[in-house]
């Protein structure tokens, strides 16, 4: 299980929990798991999120491995200029 920190305004979609546990070994499994376990997150997941895994930010790479002791933080989608 991976512990995922949820940003404040999304916590209404996770029963007000700031941290949730998802059974995932990759980024794809994490995103699928979040959508499955917390359907209210789906609109934001479809609009796009970024995920910080052990301090590095990932957007799209589904096969990115996540270990059970990884620090995983859900972030608003990052965009640059």
């Amino acid at each position, binding site marked *: 299980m991976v512990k995922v920190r949820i940003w404040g305004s999304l916590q209404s979609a996770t029963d007000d929990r700031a941290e949730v546990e998802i059974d995932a070994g990759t980024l794809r499994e994490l995103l699928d798991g979040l959508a499955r376990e917390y359907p209210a997150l789906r609109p934001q997941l479809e609009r796009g999120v970024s995920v910080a895994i052990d301090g590095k930010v990932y957007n799209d790479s589904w096969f990115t491995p996540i270990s059970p002791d990884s620090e995983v933080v859900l*972030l608003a989608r990052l965009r640059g200029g």
Partner: protein
Amino acid sequence: MALNTKEDTKMEFKVVGTRVARPDGIDKVTGRARFGADMSAPGMLVGRVLRSPHAHARIVSLDTSAAQALDGVHAVVTRADFPDLDLDPMLADIRDNCMAGAKALYDGHAVAAVAATSAAVARQALSLIKVEYEVLPHVIDVDEAFAPDAPALHEGRADESVPEGMSPNVMARYSFGRGDVEAGLEKADRVVRRTYCTAATHQGYIEPHACLAQMGPDGQADLWCCTQGQYMVRDTCAAILGLRQGQLRVTASEIGGGFGGKTTVFLEPVALALARKAGRPVKMVMSRQEVLRATGPTASSSIDVAIGMTKDGRITAGFAELRYQGGAYPGSPVALGSMSAFAPYDLEHVRTIGWDVVTNRPKSAAYRAPGAPMAAFAVESAIDELSRDFGLDPLEVRLKNAAREGTRSAYGATYPAIGLEATLRTAHTHPHWAAPLGENQGRGVACGFWFNFGGNTCVSLNIASDGTVNVTEGNPDIGGSRASMSMMAAEELGIPYEQVRTVIADTASLGLNEVTDGSRVTFAVGLATIEAARAAKREMCRRVAKLWGIDEEAVVWKDGAVHPAGPNAGKHDPMTLAEIAAIAPNTGGPIAGHFEVNAEGAGVSFATHMVDVEVDPETGATKVLRYTVFQDAGKAVHPSYVEGQFQGGAAQGIGWALNEEYIYGDDGVLQNPGFLDYRIPVASDLPMIDTVILEIPNPGHPYGVRGVGETSIVPPLAAVANAVSAAAGVRMTDLPMSPPKVLGAMQTK
């Protein structure tokens, strides 16, 4: 994919880190470089856009018959000429921004376009288009738009994060942070609570938007344009116009600046629609007035901040509520502002709330570290005020609270190795910090943070038979990337820089490359270039080993040649890259290296800025006397370009702080759409901006590179405001700090 090769960051460089000649220099200084407006085609028509004179109006009727009948007019398009496709909301907004649908949402919103044989005919045709508008109430100011009874631009666009009862113009709410802010503020010896405002500012690129489109009856289309991302243009135009991506080839011209403002489309779908209808090429070039009225500035903001500090300088809690207006459509960069506001600091209690608000202004576009400069202005101003109130050294206060490796950031993630502390310590020992100040002068400092991105990248490296090397990449060169890619390829191959030439491919010649944004190119394209060179080296090693009749493991690449290695390799004279290339047809054919990657895991970046100003007590005018940038570059591939990025960000930030703003009349019409009245800093306004490059290697890049293009615009708003506040003797909270505003503050203090 992030390549964690931390040991490589200790390598000795021969080419990387030097200041080689820029490959585009001669073309640009002699006028040979071809920018967006320099393209032409046989039979080309001139395209022009009719724009709304109203800030908010329903389009009751639109009659183009007289324009279409005018001799020399070959096509007129309105929204009806764009297919009614089921687009996702973001693309639908881009389509609506390029050509208004039921309503014009801002002064300058496109409502129709013509293609004619000359500019004069096109202008006459525009005058013949009859538009009946029903003028609607408008709203320009972010706080007015935030009020529940504000005129509504859209109905039902707010996402699920927005509570009931909010203004219809609030599109989204974001919240980040942790701890108990109120409890943290209770522990403070002093709390500053203020509201800070920043004006909308334009990216101010010198080259206006321009493109040339042609489309044949078979559906094959070509587009030449000035953009930060030809693949983005291809994919966006194809989606909006119902084209297949592979049938539309987009070629990026040289680019006269972008700074985020060319990461979307404005003219391109219109030009393609006109070309499709006319059956002839159509060229469109914006005037400066059109650029300012109808392309993306950044958001304006209104930010409430509360920060508590103990008298020894420890921040006990930080809170910010940020309201950003992003123009007429959802998507202001408030989420990024909310995440970055307190990112430089190690805080136990921190919270930010961000509100995305729409107004009757042009759709905002990205601008260098989108959303972060405004947030940094508010937070760094409050920290400066507290530091001064306690008589503390503002750099030492920041050092006391600085995020370091292992700090959990305010946005949630824990930092790896970062360079903030190094920038602060270097600033503290720099001669600038100890230099004396004169009467009416003040010194300000501020820190800034940016995420930096990577993204989809594709590079091809081809070796010619004489040993010269071409690197083909897909990102328009805005800040010197052709030089940087050539340098990294030369470094990896062990050959002189002059032996490598890098070119920018069109969309049909290379796989997807994301936009030149997010400070991604030197990091991501550099990573791909290095890996493409490594692939070519592996192939050359394989061929030489076969030639020598030994195992591939028995050869190594060193100093631009294959050498035998190990006890069983035998004696062979090394073969240089040029020697291997010369016999390529005999050893298996052309030699190339490719690398395709979604280069994620880019390292974050920090900077500290220091500035001295003098405020004229009679006029309120501010003169910038001295400016020094301290920033972590990971590894500066070409230090001159890195210094240029630092200086450019500081210069734009100075303009944002002192001069630049969109000024609207009561009718919602932009009053200053030109560079005479919208005043960006010019050379005579600025001192030489000093730079100090720090190199804390990014473990996610083979050479330790971090993006540097955006962080440099994050601190200057606050640094200048802190300096002006010190010089004027009154805290300035409203940007720009134009002379009347400063004079007024000084007179009422």
